[in-house]
């Protein structure tokens, strides 16, 4: 054997051993395989969560927004009012309305807020109630939005093969995702609403306790205000609280984008930008309150409360003591949409594979039988060269499995479809080469030159077929989700490894064989 061939053989053996180690450990065992190759929900089962959406949050948010909108309209039309106060999730009162302007007031409500019913509550006061149909509408929309947001978050984390469905007709969401290792992290990402709110602070600073904050109101929480805890700590480490104006702020629904950045001190921070709707309200809000504190609130806790120095219209930054992972998680949550309402975990269980163990066994058996039949046929049809093809195809699978384990990719049924296509392409590559060798032999060439020419010529063919398939698989991977992505992953790996095995490995084996028998000798094909 020439030195060149020996080097090639060493490379092949090394690669094979490496792949086996990657997916089956050392010493190779089935138990290791189960650990190293991640299986999808359809093949392995996973965790199931039932979440309940607190739809009343969404309704309350709508009410707050209507209050602000109405307030602005009343000011514009010079209708003096006293207080606008939310009294329930779907109800608010307006007091101090000039009786002379009552018809104008009703007109505004009829024109722009027709989903609210107006009832008199005295000479100059009104109670406004959101109609049930519309409230139900908001509730159902919030569930849909929650589903979409959760989907974005889970996929943004790279958890492949998950299912998210609406359960029941009111407010439940059913989620399944494979594997239990990361269940806690996934749950935390899903559950945290990451409801971002920007609201004005009442007063000039924080208080050491809830009671201290309410002291100026005789311990009674006034309507339209709330006391929220802060993540900041006082110099002695004790918690702090802020008194916040409940309405008149911006919520996460107005977010356009959020991404990781650095604050002035170089620490991880999150920058966000608002959409047109939010910007429209944020501008005046900041402009009219220069010098006051603006609280940046995440999930009901004040992150920070910087002083408003000027008008901001559409972007801001959230600073704090975030680790890079925290900042990334938070940006993902904000970006994938704030959950319109908070979620609570109703049920948590472990589910079996959707394909069912029986089905998997049947599939594996059927495939094994089929592949053995293919090998037998190749041996019969191509005689000893059939061994080449068999080794090449076996190696292809080994390298494919090793790569899957190394990349921590998840194997699902669509992924197996990709493997089947790879096997088909593998068969094709070998047949192409062997048929070409037969053609050359028939034309009278020597064994050695036939092999050489065939590999050279078929290489061009293989490059074209493989590159075309690789390009399409790349697009599928980039733009597809779920099953499409799973299919693309195994296909890409399979195609690359096939080029290696069908060309490099097969050719090396041929050349070793030829080297043994002498140049002009025949090959068994």
């Amino acid at each position, binding site marked *: 054997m020439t030195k060149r061939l020996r080097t090639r053989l060493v490379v092949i053996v090394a690669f094979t051993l490496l792949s086996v180690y990657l997916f089956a450990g050392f010493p190779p065992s089935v138990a290791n395989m189960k650990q190293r190759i991640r299986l999808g929900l359809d093949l392995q089962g996973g965790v*199931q969560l039932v979440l309940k959406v607190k739809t009343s949050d969404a309704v309350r948010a709508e009410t707050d927004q209507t209050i602000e909108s109405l307030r602005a309209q009343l000011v514009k039309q010079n209708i003096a009012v006293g207080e606008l106060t939310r009294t329930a999730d779907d109800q608010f009162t307006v007091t101090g309305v000039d009786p002379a302007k009552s018809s104008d007031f009703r007109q505004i409500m009829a024109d722009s807020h027709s989903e609210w019913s107006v009832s008199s509550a005295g000479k100059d006061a009104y109670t406004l109630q959101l109609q049930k149909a519309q409230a139900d509408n908001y509730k159902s929309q919030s569930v849909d939005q929650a589903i979409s947001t959760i989907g974005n978050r889970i996929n943004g984390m790279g958890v492949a093969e998950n299912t998210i469905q609406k*359960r029941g007709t009111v407010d439940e969401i059913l989620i399944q995702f494979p594997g239990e290792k990361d269940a806690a992290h996934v749950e935390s990402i899903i559950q945290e609403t990451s409801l971002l709110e920007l609201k004005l602070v009442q007063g000039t600073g924080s208080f050491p306790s809830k009671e201290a904050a309410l002291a100026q109101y005789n311990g009674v929480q006034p309507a339209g205000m709330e006391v929220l805890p802060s993540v900041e700590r006082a110099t002695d480490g004790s918690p702090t609280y802020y008194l916040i104006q409940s309405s008149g702020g911006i919520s996460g629904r107005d977010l356009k984008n959020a991404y990781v950045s650095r604050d002035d001190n170089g620490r991880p921070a999150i920058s966000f930008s608002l959409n047109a709707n939010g910007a429209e309200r944020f501008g005046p809000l900041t402009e009219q309150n220069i010098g006051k504190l603006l609280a940046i609130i995440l999930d009901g806790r004040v992150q920070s409360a910087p002083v408003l120095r000027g008008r901001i219209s559409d972007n801001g930054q959230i600073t704090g003591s975030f680790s890079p992972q925290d900042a990334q998680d938070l940006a993902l949550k904000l970006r994938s949409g704030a959950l319109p309402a908070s979620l609570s975990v109703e049920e948590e269980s472990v589910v079996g594979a959707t394909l069912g*163990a029986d089905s998997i066994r049947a599939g594996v058996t059927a495939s094994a039988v089929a592949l053995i039949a293919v090998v037998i046929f190749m041996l019969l049809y191509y005689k000893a060269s059939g061994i080449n093809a068999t080794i090449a195809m076996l190696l292809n699978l080994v390298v494919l499995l090793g790569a899957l384990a190394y990349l921590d990719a998840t194997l699902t049924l669509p992924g197996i479809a990709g493997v089947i296509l790879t096997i088909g392409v593998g068969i*094709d590559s070998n047949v192409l080469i062997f048929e070409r060798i037969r053609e050359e032999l028939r034309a009278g060439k020597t064994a050695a030159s036939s092999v050489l020419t065939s590999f050279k010529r078929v290489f061009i063919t293989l490059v074209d077929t493989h590159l075309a398939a690789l390009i399409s698989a790349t697009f599928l991977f980039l733009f597809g989700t779920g099953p499409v992505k799973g299919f693309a992953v195994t296909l890409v790996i399979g195609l690359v490894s096939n080029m290696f095995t069908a060309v490099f490995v097969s050719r090396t084996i041929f050349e070793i064989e030829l080297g043994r028998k002498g140049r002009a000798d025949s090959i068994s094909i």
Partner: protein
Amino acid sequence: MELFNGIKVDWIGKRQWFFAVSIALLVIGMISLVHKGKFQYGVDFRGGITMKEIFDAPIPPVDRVREALDRGGAAHSEIQELNGTNVLPGTYQIEYGGTASGETDTNHLRDVITRALDTSFAGKHHNLSYEFVGPSVGSDLRRQAVMATLYALGGILIYIAFRFEWIYGAAAVFAVFHDTLVTLGIFSLFNREINLTVIAALLTLVGYSVNDTIVVFDRVRENLKVRRRDDLETVLNDSINQTLSRTILTSGLTFMTVLALFLFGGEIINNFAFAMVIGILVGTYSSIAVASPLVLIYTKLRGQNGIAPIAATKVPRTAKAR
């Protein structure tokens, strides 16, 4: 052993017949679709009911439960074992989407499942809860899958156009559309359910069809380089005949593999295997009967029925004759 040496069939000459067959297949598929209204979507596309059933000891394994549901008229349901801290042993979760389109009455669906389970487990099972469940494949995922596939096809077209001539790229992509439509039509005809894994099977079909087509075109390209005096029709025919043994072998072996899955792979992946079986047959067929004739027709229309070798990157452009 040699099986396919020296075959000389005039494939391109028979293209009228092939077109007729293709059009017939497509028309049948279209009629079936129109007549039935839409595809038979699985519970992951459509939604339906999710039920928790608990079984008395001895707890039947999943396949027995599945068997009972199939035989009892509730086929194509999704069954998963349920475990956990608050879950009693022997609990299964069953998702079912009904058989007719628009069948979402949960009470009715629950009755169907209960009756089906009664065929084997009467008195030995008990319903813990049932709820409506929405589809797990939203319109988002559907749209993304379609867009991703279209982009992928665009990539294929551009690559083939670059390595061969643009008509070869167009012909290959057209053959893929043909294959997909025929497969979907046959699915509709046989009332086969379309679920997530079937989507993966369709993608496999695309990949296989393109692979097959490129092998033929590659031989055409090689022949055109050396055979300057033969017209395109002859070259196309000869290329197909020369690659025929490879085509039959590869298709045959791959077909055998997916046929094994179809026959012995169990019920759940049956639709998936069915799509692959059809896909391989149609994918092979289209390289010969659709893609190649298209190239000829286009070239003839351009008045180039002659010796225009494919200007692949290595051949000097001056060799192009008009």
